[in-house]
């Protein structure tokens, strides 16, 4: 069965300003990701791979080109629509977790639902069980280990049942053993739930676990064979 394109980047360019100079970080990047695919984008530090994720997540806007997610051009969305997109259509996992520190584990996971104004407590409880944090439900996130924090972030990314999970160096702040456990959990959950997963990483081992690997080279994306 032919799968639908879920993410499309068409001739996307991005510039940054540094000391008044314009520096191009992405040059006419094109990318197609299909429903349920697991994609890795690899490349050296500063090559622009996190920028691609930020653009797809609607955290940043391209200077040229179009980003189409689930048939909608996200770089043409208004602020409200874009916020709704971030809340419902995608789940983002950051390297530095980006948990809301004053909240407990449970409160962090339920926050996207509260923003959506569609509370499903049993789903939160189920996700916490899946990420093996049931016993830490009401613990402040501040007291958790790095691996636990990233598992909270995974549960939070899945809480509104989005079709796309975007992960920016999800194991970057973790030691190798914890990192591989977290990664395994992430891959399993997205596979079971048939979600599309896009991982930004510089770790070849992680990339190898994905369906496709893209390399960012000279400001462009190049598909690598696995």
């Amino acid at each position: 069965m032919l799968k639908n394109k879920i993410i499309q980047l068409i001739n996307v360019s991005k510039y940054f300003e540094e000391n008044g100079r314009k520096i191009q970080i992405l040059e006419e990047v094109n990318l197609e990701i299909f429903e349920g695919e697991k994609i890795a984008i690899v490349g050296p530090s500063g090559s622009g791979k996190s920028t691609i994720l930020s653009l797809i997540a609607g955290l940043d806007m391209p200077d040229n080109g179009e980003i189409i997610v689930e048939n909608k051009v996200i770089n043409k969305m208004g602020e409200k629509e874009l916020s709704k997109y971030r809340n419902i259509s995608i789940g983002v996992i950051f390297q530095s977790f980006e948990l809301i520190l004053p909240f407990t584990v449970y409160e962090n996971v339920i926050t996207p639902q509260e923003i959506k104004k569609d509370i499903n407590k049993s789903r939160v409880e189920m996700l916490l069980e899946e990420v093996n944090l049931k016993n830490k439900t009401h613990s402040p996130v501040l007291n958790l280990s790095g691996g636990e924090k990233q598992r909270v972030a995974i549960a939070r990314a899945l809480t509104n049942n989005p079709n796309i999970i975007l992960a920016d160096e999800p194991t970057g702040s973790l030691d190798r053993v914890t990192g591989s456990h977290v990664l395994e959990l992430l891959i399993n959950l997205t596979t079971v739930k048939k979600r599309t997963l896009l991982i930004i990483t510089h770790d070849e081992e992680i990339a190898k676990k994905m369906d496709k690997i893209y390399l960012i080279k000279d400001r462009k994306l190049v598909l690598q064979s696995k």
Partner: protein
Amino acid sequence: MILKISFKILQKEWRKLLLPFLSVLLTTIVVTTSFLLINSAKDFLILKNKEILGGDISFEANRSFELGKIIDKSILKNVGEQVAFQALFTKQDINTGVSLKVVDENFPLYGQIVLRNKEYEYLKAGEIYIDENLEKSFQIKKLGEDIYFNNATFTVKGIIKSDPEDLIPSFNFSGKAVVAQESLNYAKINLDLFRKEYKKNIILNRNLSKNEIEDIKNKAKSVDVRVQIDITGQGGFGFALEVIERFLVITILIISVLSLVNIYASVNYLSIRLRRSFAILISLGMPIINIYKILFIINFAIIFISILLGLTGSIFITNHISQFIDLNYKIEMFFRINYLEFFYIAGAILTTSIFATIPVINRMRNISPKELLQRQTEKSVKNTFKNILVDVFVGILPITLLAIFFLNSFLYGLIAIIGIVLVYAGLMIFYYYFINILYKKRNVFNFPLKMITSQKKFDGFFGLITFASLFVALVSIYNLSIVRTSVEEYLKNDLKRNLPSTYILDIQKSQKDKLLENFKEITLFPNIRARIISIDDVDVQKELDNKSENLDRELGREFNLTYRNYLLSSEKIYKSTKNFKFSNMGENEVSLEKDFAKRVNIKLGSNLVFSIQGIKINVKVTSIREVDTRSGYPFFYFILSTKTLEKFPQTFFGFANYNEVKQNNLKKYLSQNVPNANIINTKSITNIAENLINILLLIILIITIPPLFLSSMLIVTILGSVATERKRDGARLMALGKTQNYVRNYYIIESTSTVVLASSFAYILSVILSNFLIIKYLKIENIVYFDFVSFYIFVFILLSIILTSITLWKSSGRSLKEYLNYEENN
């Protein structure tokens, strides 16, 4: 190496240090300028006090006296001698009672007599200055006209517009005139024939100790001479000046507290902003002790530069304010730039700032680089008893020293600081439990409220300090505003209103009823002159002749008695015998004024014998009255029953609050029907009064602005540091699907709710505190529960927060991605 890193951080991260730098800079400017202004205002008030008094010290008696018996002549710099008496001047068929002041060439020692259209100069024999009342009474058309006294001619050389000494409350209602000493011989005036007052004003060549002042007072008392060292406590303007002086003390205290809290907030903010840089250095292997050194150096550098610039700025500002006041208000406020004082202030601010880093450093102990990098500092530092002890003691030490320095009193400084610490502690405990209760109930709140509650709980000790500092800043603002409003109201209304526009003198009993028929608003008091023969069977005259120490010499003079069966609004019964009723005083009863009774040692229940025109009357003191001496209304030491005094010959005098038209009608009536009566228009006095009130109001305004500015700045610093903390949380919410508007509104709600909460408690405490200050310390009876200025300030602060929040979330132009990396990028 440490120096190199410190300066590298200063150079590279100067943006982070901008807020504390500006904060300390402005604090220095405000504190120094305020200190200078307050000192100048105090100098001005002292001078005004001396002008009204006539000298540093003023001695008075109803006979001539030798200064050498009272004061060591070697400490006298200058002496001015005066004698004043009532004289009847004539011009053709006009006869008018004149309060004549005979002065020497040194008069006036302070201030100046303002004449209309000419400068005051010492007169020659046969020349006279008269006031505007006499000008009208004598129908003087131009200078150079003659008036007569004791068969001598006096040429009018000028019209007195104001004499500073007139502001002392007195009951000498005649028109005033000034002549030179030489005129006494010229007009062959035999002073023995007049009831006169000798006055010697002096300027000292050095300050006196308390013991020396006591010694002078005792010596003066022993030779029956009254002595006045300052005019405070005498009612009227003396009291007003005292009120302003005390207001300045309150302001100084508020400024010192605010500046210290401001410095603490700035240093705390600075350490928060640099935490990440420090974490990186620790992770690179730098020992924590070196981090302390770097923090100290950076702090010192910022504070040193800001103090240096601040002092320069304050010299500039003070000079400009001085010029502005001089140009627009013609008040020489004696602005002086005392570089030694500047040095002290700079030293105090610098020491305080350095001390302020100690609690911050103390709280940075035992922090691992990992915790720092994850921005978990606040939680990781345990609020051990030792930590809190270090914070409190190290923190309050410089505050105490600075308060002692500003207040110029060890006791005041200590009391003030203990009070502030207690308020801080109490409030922090309250806030801690309040937030804890809310946190436990957070699940029933909607999302923003739950977020705010969790955020406040998470803020921990920093949150407590922030709230307490905000509270102190708001209490300071509201307190100052309420006290200021009360003082302003008192100056504007009470003081002016209390000085009746018209006094009426020498009304005979037969003329009274008809006068009141035509002018119902006039309040008249009967006046019967009497001497005291004995007090509790002690013969007063005999004791005085024997120079007895047991009796006050004032008792030897003639007193004015009056009768009435009602109390004035300015009077209330302080003490009375059982079943006493003022409206029903018996024939043998007398009511005494409290201060006089205390002075001459007459007690409730004492028996007095008066002699009125040779007739003796026996009375018992059945009540002691408390009289508001600031009321401006005539009051009597002795009030007897109507039955007792009605039968004696008496004249009446009284007052009315008439406008110019009504006053002219009264004049016309009196000239036609009561030609013997005198009418005094107090306008010339009120003119001086209004001028002085305006100057005092200006002083209050100038003094109030800096602390208000300082408080506002403190609030911005506090909220600014919160804003930095909240930016990343805001970005997280946006990444999860909240809009930028929502996050901005959330921040506005969080900031405003904190300010509203702090404001509500601050206002309640301010009303209690300021009313205590107003009634007990300033001793004016203005109870203020609502103050519009405070309300405007509150609205201003709220609007500022809203505007700052909008600016913070709009103007940066950062993408959401950059917000998420905010800490890293900044």
